[in-house]
């Protein structure tokens, strides 16, 4: 095994560990932190299934953002949906045999990659041109956008200009499952692409990327509007009653 292959193998083991452990830690932390009061933003659904429907609209359509700002919504949604398609397309590197739906999604994944970069560029432009958004942006907000755009661009370049040996790449990742990494091609673009993806995985649990799990735990969105019908009380508040 070459030095390069070994470095990247360890990098991805490490990145996967940080991502999994970090996100699990945060999800457990969110889940275990009580929500002592009923605070859904109303009008809110009065049933559990209504809440599932509300959350689905938020996750799939970004409903609240749509109401808030059309430009951010269109760029944000294009980026996220593009990223979703790209992720599906990339699953072929991680499974053998490749599932039929993943086979079918392959061509759309390419459009997804383009859409993703376009969406990101739009979001980044807002950070420069809208004074309010410029004011609230810190260096990390720019860096995360730069990171994602760089991932998208290196990927698209490999697709359209400097091809790499994707069969070897697949062997490398499949090999990681059995702790038997196969040689990774040494193309600079590929190495850059993979390095940036690993970096993204590592910063995920320590950055605002936590908005992804956070959304599911947002009390103003995931609570049922039924405070008069059912008494809502958490253990620490219950203890006050026993004093």
């Amino acid at each position: 095994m070459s030095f390069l292959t070994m470095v990247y193998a360890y990098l991805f083991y490490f990145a996967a560990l940080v991502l999994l452990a970090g996100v699990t830690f945060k999800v457990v932390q969110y889940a275990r932190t009580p929500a002592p009061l009923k605070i859904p933003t109303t009008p809110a659904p009065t049933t559990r299934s209504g809440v599932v429907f509300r959350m689905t609209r938020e996750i799939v359509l970004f409903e609240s953002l749509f109401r808030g700002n059309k430009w951010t919504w269109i760029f944000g949604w294009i980026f996220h949906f593009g990223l979703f398609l790209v992720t599906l397309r990339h699953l072929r590197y991680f499974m053998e045999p490749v599932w039929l739906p993943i086979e079918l999604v392959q061509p759309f994944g390419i459009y997804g990659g383009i859409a993703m970069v376009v969406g990101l560029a739009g979001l980044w432009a807002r950070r420069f041109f809208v004074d309010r958004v410029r004011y609230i942006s810190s260096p990390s907000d720019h860096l995360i956008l730069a990171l994602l755009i760089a991932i998208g661009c290196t990927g698209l370049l490999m697709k359209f200009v400097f091809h790499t040996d994707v069969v070897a790449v697949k062997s490398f990742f499949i090999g990681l499952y059995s702790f038997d990494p196969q040689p990774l091609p040494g193309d600079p673009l590929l190495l850059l692409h993979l390095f940036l993806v690993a970096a993204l995985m590592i910063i995920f649990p320590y950055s605002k990327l936590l908005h992804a799990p956070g959304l599911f735990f947002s009390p103003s969105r995931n609570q049922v509007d039924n405070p008069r019908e059912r008494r809502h009380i958490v253990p620490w508040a219950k203890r006050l009653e026993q004093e």
Partner: protein
Amino acid sequence: MAKATFEVPELSQYLDVPPVTPETMAHSKPFVAKPEFQAPLGFPGELMDDWQEKALDKMGELLGKYRSLRVYLDSCVKCGSCTDKCHYYLGTKDPKNMPVGRQDLMRKVYRRYFTLAGKLFPKLVGAEDFTKDVLDDWYSYYHQCSQCRRCSVFCPYGIDTAEISMAAREIMDSIGVGQKYCNEIIGKVYTIGNNLGLPGPALKDTLEGLEEDVFDETGVAVRYPIDEVGAEILLVTPSADFFAEPHVDGLIGYGKVFHEAGVTWTLSSHASEAANFGMFIGSYDNMRRVAQRIREAAIELKVKRIVFGECGHAWRVAYSFLNTLAGPWDFLDPRYPVPQHICEFTYNLIQEGKLTFDKSENDDKVLTYHDSCNVARASRMGNTPGGQFEIPRAIIRETCNHFYDMDEDTIRDRTFCCGGGGGLLTDDLMELRVKGAKPRVEALNNVMLEKGVTHMAAICAICKSQFTKVLPYYGMEMDQIVSLHQLVSNAIVLTGQDVEDDEDEADEAA
């Protein structure tokens, strides 16, 4: 027009988003609570020496107790969706009044002390040490949030700045930096029973006066009882309803509705206040203690139902929190929700055909309706989501001939706060209140010009007080704001009422 020591914003026809102009409101600070107002609430009297350590401890404690705080501080991606939604930003141009700007005052401290990225690379992620300057910013800008939740409507993660403002105020109280207005008032609730410090005998006098007035006007003996054991309904209403205009006209209306419904009801001198300022300062303990008075009053007076008068934040605490804070209510009549809003009560009677109205009594007015923020975005009325918008409007349509809504972007769940909510209804914040009212007054001004609207009805004591005070700054009249039940009171035809029209009298006799 009222005299102002600051520039009153000019109204425009369209809502324009102002350019970011930093620090325009950095000077705005409410009076700090003296030690005597801190002690009854269980807070230290003045800023402690080791305040930073204590504040961070408190922050850690709250992060463990409130999922909202933890998730909201982590989740913001700085997308900017909220940046043009806060009435205080729109009225003051100060970027720390953008919801995210306000949140970031706490988020930067959170990141510095509670996240790995902020500990290692503070500059990169916008993390900052919790210095005295930051604390001063907190005191200033967390008292420029009316906890109206408009930002949370438009946030893709539902981040509610109110939750963060409440936590900030709780942290500041815990190190001895309290706000005089809120904390003094909560003290009054504990010692006297209501925000205004009106003692029981004064309330009794006022209510007797109301009975006489209504009798003189209508010839019907409508009762306004207090502390009557065994009444069916306990009415809990903001203390402003006892004397201030236009609030008291609403209280007169509630009495007439109860009279027509044929139910017995009572106020309580022990719980003579619907508002719960414990929420404003984010203190669960104080909020609970204030709420418990209502339980005690309900038990003592042996009532079967609880109805709340017109009050916005109070209705939030009542509707959303009362069951949590002071429940369970298993000793009350299970056929009715606990608590009920007076609008639900009136609306149900209208549905049952039990109320008669003469709409022409309100023909001197062309109405619009102001959705109070906490009723709109933090509560409900009736059985279906959005009832809090439809029920009050249905009552207005039943009692008035002329009604027009304001621009859709400024009503229902997108309503603008009056500018005085969340513990800011104090004269030491007048500049903020006037500027914060701008988006609402602008929308009102537009329907005045386009539809000839003359009056705006509201169902919140804070809104009513705020507009009474603030409308004159914009060249409007203070009495353009009316209580919703004032309209009911004007139009309702009481059974056996002296009616001027002879024919009607003949009908009654027959």
